[in-house]
Each structure stands twice: as C-alpha cells, then as structure tokens.
C-alpha cells in the first residue's frame, strides 16, 4: 500500500468509528447538560442495543454473512431494525431514569453517579448470564459493494453507517433547536428553576432526554455490530469510555462538541493505531482525556462555565 492509500484507509476507518463514538457521546453530553449527571449506565445501554439489533436481525432471518435481500426491501428491513432497536434502548433508558434515578434527583454528592454504575453492572450481568460470555457473530446482510481507491477500500456498510449517523445528528439538531420540547431542553439545561417557572415540566424533559440519548446509543450498538461483525457483553466499556472521552473533549454538555469529539476520537484511534501502535491506542486516547481535563476542562467547544450562565 502506498502511504496515501494507508492514510485514506485509516481516515475512512476513523470516520466510521468516529460516527459511532459521536452517537454514543451525545447521550452522555445531553444527560449531563440537563441534570449534570454522568450516566455510566449509558455504556451498557449501548451494549444491550447491539444485542437487541442482533436478535431482531436473527428474527428476520438474517444469519451469517449471506444476504438474502437486495435493494429497497433490504434498506427497509435495516431501517426497521434500526428504529426498533432505538425504540427499545430508548425505552430502557427511560425506565432507568424513571425507576432507578428519579428518586435521587437533586441529591447532592456522588450518590446518583454511583447508582448509574450499579445500574450499568446490572445490565452487564443480565446479558452475561443470559447469553453467555462468548463473542457473538453478527449477521451482516449488507451486499459486498465496495469502491477501491488504489488499495484503500470504501465499503457500502461504511457509507451507510455515515449516512445513518449524519441523518440522526441532523434530526437531533433540528429537534433541539426548533421544536418546543427542544427549547424546553435548552431552557432546563440553562436554568432548571427558571424553566419550571415558565411552565416546563422538568421531569418530562429529563425522561425524554434519557430516551433520546439511549436511542442514539442503540443506533451506535447496531453500527458497532455491523462494523466489527461481532458483539459481546464486554463491548460497553471500551467504546463507552472512548465515547465519554469524546464528550469531554468536545465539551461536556455541548451537543456539537460531542459530535466533533466523537469524530476526532475515531480518527485518533485509527491513525494512532496505524502510525504508532494499536496497543497504544487507549494510552493515547486516555492521555487526551487527562490533558483536556487538566488544561481545558471545558473542552474544545465548551463555554467558560460548562452549564450555567
């Protein structure tokens, strides 16, 4: 491979990972933006999402790497799987908020955050104990269409993954900026008590935020499976921590920041793995986390004070 081909290939890989991290980082950042809570259950909501998507595809008869459908029916089924997965993980996130976290809202200190870690363990162990510790092969119904640039390869699945991420992020942006519920979210993030005083139902805003963040994590879970061709009970930690780093890098609480941070972390992972060494990837990524926290705790796009005026 020529050096430019290697670079191009790693950029393609990095953007794909980045799209996934960005989707995952959005959930962290939105919840933090609204109630200043780091939700560690998010890691494993993502993991559960990848399982749900896998089971849905198995239900629809997709197994292994063979594709039995083409064109529009295939697209339709994938969209269906995506939507059903997002609804399921969204509902899971909403349940976690309602029954696991709401009672702790406003409790100061680390109790709510510790609770999210506990909830995360519950999800982790439920999947481990019901499906076993072995790695699950993911069915991948995508036809093997590819474009070659020299030795660099762009596969259809990557294009699809970028497309899904971009559509979801545009939809989220539109939702937050333009709809009434989106305005209520912004207001709650900026001043919760003032939001209450203009008649915003803050409990509803919080549960919808969990729903949306968790739905995006479900989409990221499906993307993980299609990209790596496997899933496992363990995937929440690595991907989750990287996505969390992405959220901090972009500025926790900041939605465009999470998107930018995700793409950057994806690129750092693939380029760093290529040009330094794969086993150093996590060292690089978490060094970035530490450096950001020390020197620019507000992140790249964060404001001087991250959440309040």
């Amino acid at each position, binding site marked *: 491979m020529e050096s430019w081909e290697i670079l191009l290939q790693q950029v393609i890989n990095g953007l794909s990972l980045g799209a996934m991290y960005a989707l995952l980082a959005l959930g962290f950042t939105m919840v933090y933006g609204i109630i200043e809570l780091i939700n560690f259950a998010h890691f494993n909501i993502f993991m559960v999402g990848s399982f749900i998507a896998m089971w849905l595809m198995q239900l629809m008869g997709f197994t292994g790497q063979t594709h039995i459908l083409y064109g529009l029916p295939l697209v339709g089924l994938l969209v269906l799987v995506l939507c059903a997965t997002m609804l399921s993980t969204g509902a899971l996130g909403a349940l976690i908020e309602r029954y696991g976290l709401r009672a702790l809202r406003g409790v100061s200190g680390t109790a709510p955050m510790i609770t999210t870690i506990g909830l995360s363990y519950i999800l982790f162990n439920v999947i481990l104990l019901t499906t076993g510790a072995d790695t699950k092969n993911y069915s991948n119904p995508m036809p093997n269409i590819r474009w070659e640039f020299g030795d660099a390869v762009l596969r259809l699945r990557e294009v699809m993954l970028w497309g899904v991420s971009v559509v979801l992020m545009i939809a989220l942006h539109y939702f937050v900026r333009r709809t009434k519920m989106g305005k209520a979210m912004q207001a709650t993030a900026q001043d919760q*008590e003032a*939001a209450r005083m203009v008649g915003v139902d803050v409990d509803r805003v919080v549960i919808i935020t969990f729903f949306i963040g968790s739905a995006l994590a479900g989409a990221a879970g499906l993307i993980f499976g299609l990209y790596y061709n496997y899933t496992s009970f363990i995937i929440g930690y690595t991907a989750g921590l990287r996505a969390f780093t992405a959220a901090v890098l972009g500025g926790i609480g900041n939605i465009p920041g999470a998107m930018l941070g995700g793409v950057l972390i994806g690129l750092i992972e693939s380029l760093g793995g290529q040009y330094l060494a794969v086993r150093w990837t996590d060292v690089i990524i978490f060094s970035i986390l530490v450096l950001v926290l020390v020197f620019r705790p507000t992140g790249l796009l964060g404001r001087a004070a991250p959440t309040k005026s």
Partner: protein
Amino acid sequence: MPISDAPQTQSQRRPPLLEFNDVNTYYGELHVLKSVNYRVGDGEIVCLLGGNASGKSTTMKTILGIVRPKSGKVTYAGQPIDRLPTAERVKRGIAPVPEARRLFPRMTVLENLEMGAFTRSDTTEIESDKERVFGLFPRIKERLTQLAGTLSGGEQQMVAMGRALMARPKLLCMDEPSMGLSPAFVEQVFDIIQAINKQGTSIFMVEQNANMALSIADYGYVLQTGEVVLHGSAQSLRDNEMVQQAYLGEMKAQ
C-alpha cells in the same frame, strides 16, 4: 406589634384571587414561613415588605410551587393549588418575575420571550402579546437577537417582566423588581407595573423599596422572620410608625 385590620377595610377589598391560610414552609429543618395568611384581591397590587431572610422569596416560591408548604392551604381562583406542579399553576395564570431575573442566558431575547408563552399554543394571540410587550418596553424590541446573558441589569429586568407577561398571567408575582436599578429606572418600572395592573393583571410584589411600593399598592403585608407582623391598606401602612421606622426612613426625614 401586630395590628389586624378593621373588618370594614377587609370587606372593602376585592374578592380574593390568591389566599394563604396558615401556611408553613420549611427548608429541611428550617421553619421559614410560620402560619402566614395572605390575600391578594382580584385586580389589586399587594406588596410584601420585610427584612433580609424574612421569607419573602420563599413566599413567591410557595405560590409557584417551587417549594411545597408542609401545612396550610394555598388557594388560587377559588381552588386549592398547593398540590399542583409548577407548570399547571403557570397554565392557570400565575407568572413569576423571579429574584435576580433568571433569564435563559444563552437564549436570545426573543427566545426568552417565547419561553414565557411556553404553556400556550394560541399562536396569533401570542404574537399580539409580543406586540403588547414591545409597547410596554420599546427597548426590548431593539435587542431581540442579543443573548440574554449579555444584557445590562435593567434590560434583563425588562425582559424578565416581558417574559412573565407572555404567559398572559392573571397574577404576576414579582420578587424585588427594583433590585439593582437606577432611581430613574425604578420609577419607570413602577409606572409599568401600574400600567400592567390597569390592563387587568393582579400583582403580588416583594419590595425593599417600600416607599415606592406602598405608593402604588392597594394593600401590604410586613413579614418578620417568617411571620406576618402587620398588614393593612397601603395608606395605613404608610401611616404606621413601625413601618415608617423600619422601612420608610427617607420619608420620615423629609
């Protein structure tokens, strides 16, 4: 030395829009409102005087449901509201101008005004209320696209009042509307409060600026460490010796 009103003064007042009956509010162990009774008549301006930490802002928060009383009854428009969520109270026509304005700092002035109408969906009426706000505060109109966090204190106060009016309230609860404003501007704000009242909105107002407040109010209450120690018509309060000493120092010197 509490004085209670002569019965005829009470009966001359308008029918109540808001009433507190023996309301007790706590923050944890801290007993802030101690069996207080208030009454805001329909169409009145009522002012609440009191020293720092006497529970004035807590009174406002109790009306809005930001804090819940431990006992006692809060009645609005003839119905008990003390179990209702804040959003529902706002829907029924109670709007706050909170202490320190509490605008949404990273929203524009226009977005802040629109948030004031959050519970409403009558789009054309909302537009006409916007015009009404611009009529009362022409300065707001020149600043619509500015982020609220960058406004001057006086401008923020105007937007905070405008935002509250966008809910088309029956009862406006104002917590120290003159705080931090220059004397000339304070006078303007009080003129506007009177104008809003004339347009049919009842007003319950916390003020340190007792002189000004009593000059436009119909009725007043004096709160001391959580207890109503005095209440009466604005005129009777202005004539009261204790009020003159504690709150109207300047007036006496004149």
